[in-house]
């Protein structure tokens, strides 16, 4: 069966620096693939290339066989790819619920004139937007429910902000979720919750997930496959055990001496 998301020979160079070099990567439907690598390996750049925030110099990004390279980012999102950000990028001055509702823009069609005159389609879509947002937020349990809906996003705790960002991403009705370090800055309890949540996203939500993560416990627990990157090049791929013990991966993280002493 063809993979849902496929990167073929994807590459980009900034000035003299090749950030990503001819990357081939596949993610099958309902798979959870983790992208690991030391800092500066180009992992976030890969997400930027997929979502269109950065234009690749070469290669293709195929979603269900369709090439997304060259499309405007909002169109790529509308085709079915959504992401979260390494350093959170919520709409801080909007409420929790509005953050999620805003992301439903791409799936609704009422024109501005219809909104001004409150024509039937606009009113109906507005009701649907509200309902869907509540549903998306309910996915995260009690944390983002009830009174929380009307609180401004800047009043949320760090962990809740990360959850909100994931909720917002799911509101775009994606097929593929790209999560950029979802467990960053979390304590062990929260990390465990996030790992469970990601699993739930795949099992109950049916999403296909590509995530970047540094916390190896998370990677080990939930990944179906792991891909390791260093200096923009794929250096290993396989199950967690295979990749974690791969000498090139160890060297990338810990330096040459580590492989020698191992």
């Amino acid at each position, binding site marked *: 069966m063809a993979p849902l998301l496929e990167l073929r020979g994807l590459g980009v160079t900034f000035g003299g620096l090749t950030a990503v070099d001819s990357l081939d990567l596949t993610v099958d439907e309902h798979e959870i693939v983790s992208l690991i690598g030391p800092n500066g390996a180009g992992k976030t750049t890969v997400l930027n290339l997929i979502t269109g925030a950065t234009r690749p110099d070469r290669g293709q990004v195929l979603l269900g066989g369709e090439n997304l390279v060259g499309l405007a980012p909002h169109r790529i999102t509308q085709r079915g790819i*959504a992401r979260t950000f390494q350093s959170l990028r919520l*709409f801080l001055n909007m409420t929790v619920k509005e953050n999620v509702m805003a992301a439903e*823009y791409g799936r609704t069609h009422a024109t501005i004139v219809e909104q*001004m005159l409150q024509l039937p389609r606009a009113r109906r879509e507005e009701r649907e937007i509200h309902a869907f947002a509540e549903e998306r937020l309910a996915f995260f349990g009690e944390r983002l429910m009830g*009174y929380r809906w009307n609180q401004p996003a800047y009043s949320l705790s760090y962990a809740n902000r990360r959850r909100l960002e994931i909720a917002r991403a799911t509101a775009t009705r994606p097929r593929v979720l790209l999560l950029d370090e979802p467990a960053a800055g979390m304590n062990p309890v929260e990390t465990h919750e996030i790992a469970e949540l990601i699993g739930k996203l795949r099992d109950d939500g049916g999403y296909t997930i590509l995530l970047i993560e540094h916390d190896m416990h998370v990677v080990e627990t939930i990944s179906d496959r792991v891909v390791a990157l260093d200096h923009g090049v794929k250096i290993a791929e396989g199950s967690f055990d295979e990749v974690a013990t791969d000498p090139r991966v160890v060297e990338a993280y810990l330096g040459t001496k580590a492989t020698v002493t191992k």
Partner: protein
Amino acid sequence: MSAPAPTPGAEPATSPQIGVDEWVRRSGERIVGPAGALGALRRAAERTPWYVLLAVFVGLVSAIPELTSNQYIIGVAADTMLYVLLAVGLNVAVGWAGLLDLGYIAFYGFAAYLYAELSSGHYNLHWPTWQSVPLVIAATILLGFVLALPSRRLSGDYLAIVTLFFLEIFNNFTNNGYAWNWLGFGATHNITGGPTGLTNVDPFRVFGHELTNRPTDYLWVATGGFAVIAVLLTFVNRSRTGRAWRALRDDPLAAELMGMPVKWLMLLAVAVGAGVAGFAGTVNAAYYQGVFPTTFYFPLLITIYVMAILGGAGSLGGVAVGAIVVNVLLEVLRTPNHARWVFYAAVLIGLLAKVRPWRLLAGVLAGLVAFGVVVNQVVGAVWPRGVHGAIAMGPTSFTTHGFFATCLRHWLVLPAHTYEASNYQIGNYAFVLTIALVLACTAATGWKRWVLLVPTIWGAALAWETTLIEQAPTVRPLLLGVILIVLMATRPAGLFGKTRVEVV
């Protein structure tokens, strides 16, 4: 949402358990809302449904011609409503979408001129109102799209620059458009009437009835238009477009990646704002029966910006209030006697609001009075003529009688035969001195600041009485500049805006 069950053997909780949902849920009760009279007003405003507020406002304004027959007051009201319309239109691009549109007034002027071209004796087209007004509004919206196109490739600062260029282009064209000849390759056309503008513009004609009862008719037209526009805009703001604009204001990149077409939304915001300005432009042309280039210069843009920011950019009701406050203020400043009230009222309110505790306030006020009296006595002994001046009541009338005049003459140093004869030297020195003192006050800390505050206020009062009070055309922009500077430094959210959190 109940508190978690206590662990067996544990003491029952006696203090707030921070983080527990019950505590958080009731956090709303502990929020310290905006304080004082303004805060109470805001809370009341937030509790009332928006359409009630709108209906009350429209009702009150429309009733003005019934409550008074003073044409001056009705005229000020009509002007104010035009400003309200402009502020509301600017709010769409600047307040809701967060775009810095410095060319906004060009839309206003374009619409006014286009209406004047279509419905006047200039080309002898006398298009009926129901044709020209919608066409002008549509054309202005189109112009909005065109002008915003550069924004597709530009961001923030660059957009501000390009929109400012458009305003300059527009001003250049209207001023010199009486001799337009395609650089020598065509006949010469008089398109804009040049510096004298276009006159003999038709009034509005609705349902066969010509609106010639100025200003009352146009007050009603402007207010009615405002009501409709406010309703339409509120509906948009509460729908997906409004949310997308707010998302765009907070984080354009994230908005784009969440499926919102940021470039299109920017075009839309500018175009909608332009449409509102377009309507205001037609009303302006019909009301004043003429259009002139000097109306649509940069100072008008600044005025609208002050209104929007003072009122609270991002809040439709807020900017409307801002427009009213600023325009009424500027009107009041025209007459020296009224301007005087405004100044001293503002000083008192400022002191009351900012100087705490009460003892300190009393001390400052007492020191202020004492300082003035002492200086007055000293100067009076050395230079008698220096304290014998009169206070200004009108453009050319001065008086030494009356309670206020006597107080001021014994508190300030008002030299006779100087500013009354339009010799503003004393006032100029006082003005410069006051600025220096204001800066010193800002830089000082602790008790030194309160001590310096006394001569600062005194100097400001002296400058006010001996020069500023009589030079309304200069004081208007001066005051607007000061309001902007002070607002941005102390309260960027204005009166009714929400304080924003920004990731820098």
